[in-house]
């Protein structure tokens, strides 16, 4: 499903080149849920951006659902983002002038679906995340947890084969984060998608996923349930 080989991503020109991702190679089967843990600046988000086709690798091969992301054109990358992946971000990334329902509808608009069909699907998705009664609220009228639920609904509306989550609970308090995690776990089970979940919180990471990875200085290594013990905490 997801396969990377000697993946590099660096910024700047030599000799001031900074490597964010170094020789990352891993494989993930369909419906597997991977959690990547690491400190800030370790390269987790960069890897996720590469998996989401928001960025291109400097070198190396990256294949997701038989798409060679390192070889796609700009339009093909956009189509991939629309149809293959759904992504949630730490800062929710909702459009402030649009209601919860309209934010959820966005991918369907880009797909060219009719207004009625969009409305039906978006309402159903909001219902799944428990926000049916907040459909017509603007983002600023929603709590952080509610905003993240809207973002999750938007990420899942096109039934993506890959779900990417970049510290989705990073801006939430503990109890709200717990609620969101519970929702995500439920939705992962229901939608049976491949998941890559990035967090720096080991406690949260321990609740999700069947494969665990540790990201450190741009290098990725698969670890056990304790995330490599002291190394992860370092």
């Amino acid at each position, binding site marked *: 499903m997801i396969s990377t080989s000697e993946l590099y991503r660096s910024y700047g020109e030599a000799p001031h080149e900074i490597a964010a991702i170094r020789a990352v190679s891993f494989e993930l089967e369909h419906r597997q849920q991977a959690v990547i843990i690491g400190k800030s600046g370790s390269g987790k988000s960069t890897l996720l951006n590469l998996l989401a086709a928001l960025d291109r690798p400097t070198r190396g091969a990256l294949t997701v659902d038989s798409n060679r992301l390192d070889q796609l054109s*700009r*339009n093909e990358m956009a189509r991939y983002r*629309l149809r293959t992946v759904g992504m949630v*971000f730490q*800062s929710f*990334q909702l459009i402030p*002038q649009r209601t919860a329902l309209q934010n959820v509808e966005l991918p369907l608009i*880009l797909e060219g679906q009719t207004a009625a069909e969009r409305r039906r699907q978006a309402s159903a998705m909001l219902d799944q995340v428990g926000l049916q009664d907040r459909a017509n609220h603007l983002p600023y009228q929603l709590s952080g947890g509610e905003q993240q639920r809207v973002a999750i609904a938007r990420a899942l509306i096109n039934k993506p084969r890959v779900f990417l989550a970049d510290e989705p609970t990073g801006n939430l308090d503990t109890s709200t984060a717990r609620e969101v995690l519970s929702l995500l776990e439920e939705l992962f089970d229901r939608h049976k998608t491949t998941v890559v979940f990035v967090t720096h919180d080991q406690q949260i990471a321990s609740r999700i996923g069947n494969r665990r990875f540790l990201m450190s200085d741009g290098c990725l290594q698969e670890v056990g349930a304790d995330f490599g013990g002291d190394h992860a905490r370092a």
Partner: protein
Amino acid sequence: MRARDIIGIAARNLWHRRRRTALNLIGVAIGSGVLLMTLSVTSGLRSAIHAMIDATEFARSIYVHRSESPMQLDAISPKPPESALVVEGEMDPARRKRIRDALADVWQSENQQKTMAQERKRMEIVSKSKPISAEDMLGIKRIEHVQEVVPGIHQSCRVMLDGAERSSVLHAANLSSGLLRQRLLVGQFLTENDRDGVLMDEFLAYQMGFRSDAQLAELLGKTIEIEAISRADTLRQLLESAELASSAVDLGAFAEYVRTGQQLLADLDRTTLDDSQKRLIRQTLSKRFLRSGDQGSHPNAVRRRLTVRGILRLGTDADLIQMFRYSFSEGSYGLRVVPSTALDLASQQADFRGMFGASVFVDSVRNIDRVTEKLEQDGYRCASMVQMLKHVEKQIDQGKWLLVSVAMLILLVTAIGIGIMLMISVIERTTEFGILKAVGAKDQDVVCLVLCEGAVLGLLGTLLAALVALLCAWLGNDLLLHLLLTRFNMKLDSNLFLFSPTAMLTVTLCSVWICMSASAIPAWRAARLDPIVAMRRV
């Protein structure tokens, strides 16, 4: 993305920044409005002038002559005093106004300050120009599409009836003219074989003493005597007399000089001069200062008796067509006889060399150019309504392009404003575009969204302009027609603002295209945004 969704999103974004949108809309509306009004008013004016001219036979006429230079002389006409404009007799108010205007014309022609140099120039033009003979007229009539040729005879004459005597001009009438026929106040129109009939204008009748409306009918059937005078001889005498007085004097001063001389002769018996002195003065001055009537008949005069068949209304309250008609030398005042009678009278003059010009009537307006070309090949100089119309249209077009340039300039400035506004908008909405791209929007989706905002601005601005223009046209049409009638004596019945679908479509497309062009740079910038960088701006 579906077009409907793109338009919806663009409209929602514009609504979200409604103040800025409103300001830009005003700019687009002003530019489009000026453009639309310019196109509609020029189209309306052109259509009105065409309708006005096409409605008469006059549009089918060509005035031909062989003069090398124009006959127009600039004369300064002072304003007549009220005492010279008193109209006597019971008559219709409209006729009273026409007579009053005619009195003003007569007073001005007597008092206009034409210089001797100007009059000499006129004499030179007349004497140097090659005349049109009766044979020439037959030749012109043989040209394909020519229906009728009316000789340009405008014979100075004296009119005598029941002891009254007046100076006037005798014209060859165009018997097929609907316009002339429309001017018949009382009596009947001339027929082709009526060589002894004459039509008299109502002012001449007034001057001859037939003043009230009732008296006009009494004039019908009366026989008048006319005495044709060679204009060249009269002018030559006038010039010689004037040059004797002073080479620098103008005609106004010369007229005063003549009047003073005449007064001196009339009052001579009341002076203390003895008989021999009085005889000497009479012998010296009478040749110079007594009017031809006082002296008896002019040596070159040709006399003829004619019967009044009808009275013609003056053209002083005429519309633009009759103004043009006047410019074609048919005039409003004087007597009208059938062309053969006019030619007969003119040809009996000792110095008659032929006509200065003639009016050629063509079967259709469409053939005017063809006949004009043939006449010019034959050495005639031509003037027709079609040529005048082309000139008027050229003037209208020049005015139109000036206004169109102003409108385009306004639209261009507005477009720059729109471009700046959309650029600011793109910068403000960087995150939004980043999110759109992150969830799968293609570059062209983003380009379409921004271009569509420009297009919506152009479209709404044009719609607003169209509404305002229609309102202005509705309110302004009657006002402009009234102004044209009162200021320019131009009576138009058609609508002055013509909003053709083509003009509407052209303005809309032009406005939308300019606004979309202004959106191109912001659209390109939005499309090239890196979604990761854009989303970090939260």
